[in-house]
């Protein structure tokens, strides 16, 4: 296990290095610069600024400088907002984005799995049809449309929840709902179909022949086997939720990382683009690693490491 983790960790570092390199050169290939504004600036001042941010140096020098500071987890200062470093932006934004993302994942997984189980147990009955109709709607509506609809109905018309910002649990309801509906619907459909398949397996029949209580059959015998496909797509869903947070944070004016990420691209704020991209990638890669670990825990047949003598 230890060897597996070390191997995976080195691969993760490699991936992040490649992402950072690609982002760096792509970012500089995009026309424009952080110092370009609508107002015309004095050429001398422009040159001075470029010198200050080392933008006048050849690209490869800038690249090596950046990689060096990245290795020490120093993401540098923001060019647009000179009073703050990128590290400060991340420290401030990440906890909020993380909170939004984690609550969304928990809600999506719990309700999706529960809905899937109920639909499977009531196969071809009203509850099944209802849940699946709901799921199709959930998959079809993009999260930004969902967000607008929720704000219009629940915040503006009925005035139940606050329409924006991130202060109390009440503020969290709408953004989490908007972000969680899609993944929840996907998980529900997947859980249902894999649960239906698992419930016809011989070992479930055998558990019933043993007189085991239905609750235990569903949760102990069936669910764990039925969760395998769900865990498999968790990686994709996580990436989806992560990019979803950019949009949702923008719509609900949530001061998370997503806001800085989007703004930085518009402003060509090189250090912030690099910092947020590398951070997001590192986070996603780590989550995918966790998914693989969970995979091995769920199914004892999957071995993450090879022991001697194993076939």
């Amino acid at each position, binding site marked *: 296990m230890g060897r597996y983790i070390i191997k995976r960790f080195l691969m993760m570092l490699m991936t992040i290095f490649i992402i950072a390199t690609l982002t760096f050169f792509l970012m500089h290939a995009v026309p424009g610069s952080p110092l370009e504004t609508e107002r015309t600036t004095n050429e001398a001042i422009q040159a001075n600024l470029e010198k200050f941010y080392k933008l006048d140096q050849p690209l490869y020098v800038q690249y090596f400088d950046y990689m060096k500071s990245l290795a020490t987890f120093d993401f540098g200062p923001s060019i647009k907002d000179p009073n703050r470093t990128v590290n400060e932006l991340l420290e401030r934004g990440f906890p909020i984005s993380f909170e939004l993302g984690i609550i969304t994942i928990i809600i999506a997984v719990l309700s999706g799995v529960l809905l899937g189980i109920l639909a499977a147990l009531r196969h071809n009955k009203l509850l099944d049809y209802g849940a699946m109709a709901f799921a199709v709607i959930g998959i079809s509506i993009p999260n930004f449309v969902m967000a607008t609809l929720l704000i219009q109905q629940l915040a503006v018309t009925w005035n139940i929840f606050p329409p924006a910002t991130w202060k109390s649990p009440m503020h969290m309801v709408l953004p989490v709902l908007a972000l969680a509906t899609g993944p929840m619907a996907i998980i529900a459909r997947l859980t249902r179909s894999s649960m239906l398949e698992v419930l016809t397996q011989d*070992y479930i029949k*055998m558990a019933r*022949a*043993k*007189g*085991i*209580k239905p609750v235990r059959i569903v949760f102990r*015998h069936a669910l*764990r086997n039925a969760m395998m496909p769900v865990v498999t797509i968790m990686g994709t869903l996580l990436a989806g939720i992560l990019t979803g947070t950019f949009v949702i944070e923008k719509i609900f004016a949530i001061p998370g990382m997503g806001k800085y990420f989007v703004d930085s691209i518009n402003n060509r704020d090189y250090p912030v683009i690099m910092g947020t991209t590398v951070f997001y990638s590192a986070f996603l890669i780590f989550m995918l690693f966790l998914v693989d670990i969970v995979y091995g825990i769920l199914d004892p*047949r999957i071995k993450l490491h090879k022991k001697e003598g194993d076939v």
Partner: protein
Amino acid sequence: MTRPLADELTRTRLEDGAESDPFAHDAKRGKIAKPKRKRTVTDEKILEVQDLHVTFRTYGGTVQAVRGVTFDLFKGETLAIVGESGCGKSVTSNAIMGLIQQPPGKITSKGVRFKSKDLTKLSKKEMRKIQGVDISMIFQDPMTALNPTLTIGEQLTEGVKQHKNLSGAEAKKRAVEMLDLVGIPNPEERLKQYPHQFSGGMRQRIVIAIALICEPELLIADEPTTALDVTIQAQILDLFEEIQAKTGVSIILITHDLGVVAKIADRIAVMYAGKVVETGTKREIFYTANHPYTRGLLNSVPRLDLKEEELVPIDGTPPDLFSPPAGCPFAPRCPFAMEVCARVYPEPTHLSATQKVDCWLQDERAKKLIQDGAFAH
């Protein structure tokens, strides 16, 4: 079925391998010494199935899978239910076990009495107190019958924990005993392992251990050796005999393998198209079978004592159970079929205290045919 003579009611059999069954010697190969053991079959009826019907509603119509099955099972006895695929033998066992989902399935009967309790009248909750406790089931394919994500220890102990309220330690002790009984070495360590760490034969032993852990009185084995290779088959059958000698459990053995039947059955029920067409003791079925279908089955099995003879398959296919025929379902394939066969299903004829056959050839008006020697073998 009745057994009138008192000395037949309680008989003690000594099996020492000296029996002259036509199939016995091939089932015995691969085994060095057969231990002598005593088994006791009593006159106490443990299971009475009367006129059991099972139908399934499907998109294509209603399948009449089981169409009036009647049989008894005595304590300590092994009854083999024999028949080809789709004849309703597994559905019969699932119906007894309470594993038919209703709907789409539908069970009607004049009673499936287990120790005078009608199983078809029990609620699901009451049935759960019998499933795995009084009646256990062994499944065909040990590769799929065990849950791949649970340790075999958990799969062994969950039954006793729930039904007998044993503590974890007691249940574990019991599980170790059971693994010992079915011949799995190092049971303590093996409890922590998962099914994929065992071979097919080992897994079937575990399935048997799970079935026996609550000390059931009736064991239904649904093709328990079909998925195993021949040497392992013989071992598992020996295990069944050993367990029956030790615990006195009654066994219903569902199979299409007459070699298996020859080895361990006391009585045989032959099923065809959802009906039991002939029942009798092993000896009666193998030597004086009277139903043309039973004879056909026996003729289609290779025999070592008749080397030159070619196998005789039964021509044709079983009837469509969506619309089963009014008369004898075997009539279209039967070389001796008469006009009446296709129209009316025959009443059972009792040939002996233990042998019963549903066939028009037993009618006195048809006897001439048999005397002509057309049915001799």
